[in-house]
């Protein structure tokens, strides 16, 4: 059996082993579950050093040997060693007496995250707020819906002018877009105590409109999960059985 055949066969065994949980919990499944966890943890250990600590920390700290004897000697920034005790403080979470120390590196990471939120908020939502505020009144009544520009025969400036207009159908869609955002927001932000009838109605409407978003997410999730399953079936029936075992 060639290496590729062994590799694919092991993959199929592992896949079937994990799928066996669908029948019931069994030792075959538990074996592969633990194998998976061990391999994932092992790879993480490799990557932590190779990708995140060797170059960005160790090499910068102790310096690197020059490639050629004529190259200048690099420098080592020794102060980087202080990050080691700082990082190791995180492991004090396992200590009953000193677990407060783990909050120092966690606090630093959370502080770095939270400090970015102001900048991020505007970067993310500034354009979306602008994108929500679209024209809700038509600029022309020449057509109720967006015309078919290809068949209109318009060219040049006339075509550009036609494309820049807001038609009634677009204005209605923009209005519905704006109303949906406001109603959904009112459901979130005023859900603690809606006093006026308007806010209560908007909040109630927001709940129904939210369902459209959730329905879309559910539909997309279904498609994605089924695609992943089809991929596994392809791996078993086509890549392994047909191409590797039967060699068709």
């Amino acid at each position: 059996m060639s290496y590729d055949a062994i590799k694919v066969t092991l993959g199929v065994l592992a896949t079937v082993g994990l799928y066996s949980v669908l029948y019931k919990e069994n030792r075959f499944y538990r074996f592969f579950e633990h194998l998976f966890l061990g391999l994932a943890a092992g790879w993480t250990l490799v990557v932590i050093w190779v990708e995140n600590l060797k170059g960005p920390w160790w090499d910068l700290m102790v310096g690197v040997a020059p490639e050629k004897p004529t190259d200048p000697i690099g420098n080592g920034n020794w102060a980087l060693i202080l990050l080691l005790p700082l990082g190791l403080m995180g492991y004090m979470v396992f200590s009953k007496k000193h677990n407060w120390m783990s909050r120092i590196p966690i606090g630093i990471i959370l502080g770095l995250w939270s400090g970015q939120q102001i900048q991020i908020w505007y970067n993310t939502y500034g354009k979306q707020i602008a994108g929500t505020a679209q024209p809700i009144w038509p600029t022309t009544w020449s057509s109720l819906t967006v015309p078919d520009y290809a068949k209109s025969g318009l060219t040049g400036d006339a075509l550009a002018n036609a494309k820049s207009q807001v038609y009634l159908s677009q204005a209605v869609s923009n209005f519905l877009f704006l109303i949906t955002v406001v109603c959904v927001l009112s459901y979130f932000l005023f859900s603690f105590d809606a006093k006026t009838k308007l806010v209560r109605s908007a909040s109630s409407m927001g709940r129904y409109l939210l369902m459209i978003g959730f329905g879309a997410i559910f539909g997309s999730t279904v498609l994605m999960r089924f695609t992943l399953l089809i991929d596994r079936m392809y791996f078993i029936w086509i890549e392994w059985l047909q191409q590797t075992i039967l060699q068709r």
Partner: protein
Amino acid sequence: MNLILQSKTVNFWAQPYGSSTLWAYLFGALIFGILVFVGLMFMPAQFRRPVVAFCTFIAGAYWVLLYAWPAPIDLQPNELPQGPVEGVGAWLKDANPVVVGMTGIITAFMLGLGIFSLLSIHLRKIRRQQRDWPFSVVLLVSMVAMVSFGYADYFSRQGPDGTKLDLQANWGLANYGRDLLFDGLLQQMDAAMFSVIAFYILSAAYRAFRIRSVEATILLSTALLVMLSLMGAVAYISEQTINGLVSSTGNDFFLNFTLTEVAGWVRRTFETSSLRGIAFGVGIGALAMGLRIWLSLEKSGGNA
């Protein structure tokens, strides 16, 4: 500007590679770090929260200042900043790669926490021969195997001919071992784990997805519309049906009612907007949470 952790010229903070001064300073700094570590272990309880709050605040203050402080305009690399405002702005900007690097390093150390926890649980299981302890042996053996082959593969690519190992024809035992464990087993099991959810989705949809309320009806209808509109065959059939209607009536207006057009309109008008409303809500919450964490107003954080 040369900051203490990115200096290219030799100074107090940067010593030549392999020099005894570098190792002496390194050792000294490590001793200092250990002393601070031990000192913190003996810190009185009333100082613990202020220490954590201080570290959190300083960390967050960097990014807030970077965003809020006026950045120097068109400062060239060999030009010095003029005045304290431009000086601080230039320092903040130059410190950015250092802060980014330090964040990555601290996060990398913290990534090991999960593995440390996994190891301690399973080693305890083996030591005490608790139920299913042989599976813990499997976990440890596979972890050691992955680490061994992973590093062996990495070191085999270190030399000047490392790029030749991009071709399988040039592989050795270490490379085959890494490939078998990573690509042959880990990746396939990863895919299998995620795909199992498809079965549960089908089972849940069959048993629990009922049109019992207005909300459930809207959710199901939208889900069906999204799924069917993304199915090319269904969209094609709908388009052919509408095209037939257009040909028989001669009215192009019906082209707006193909499945693709209707689903696209629902997507653009209602789906995107409702998700945007959710995103705005989440964003406001994240901003509020970020401020509370930065200023240590969260009661659970920093309690010692």
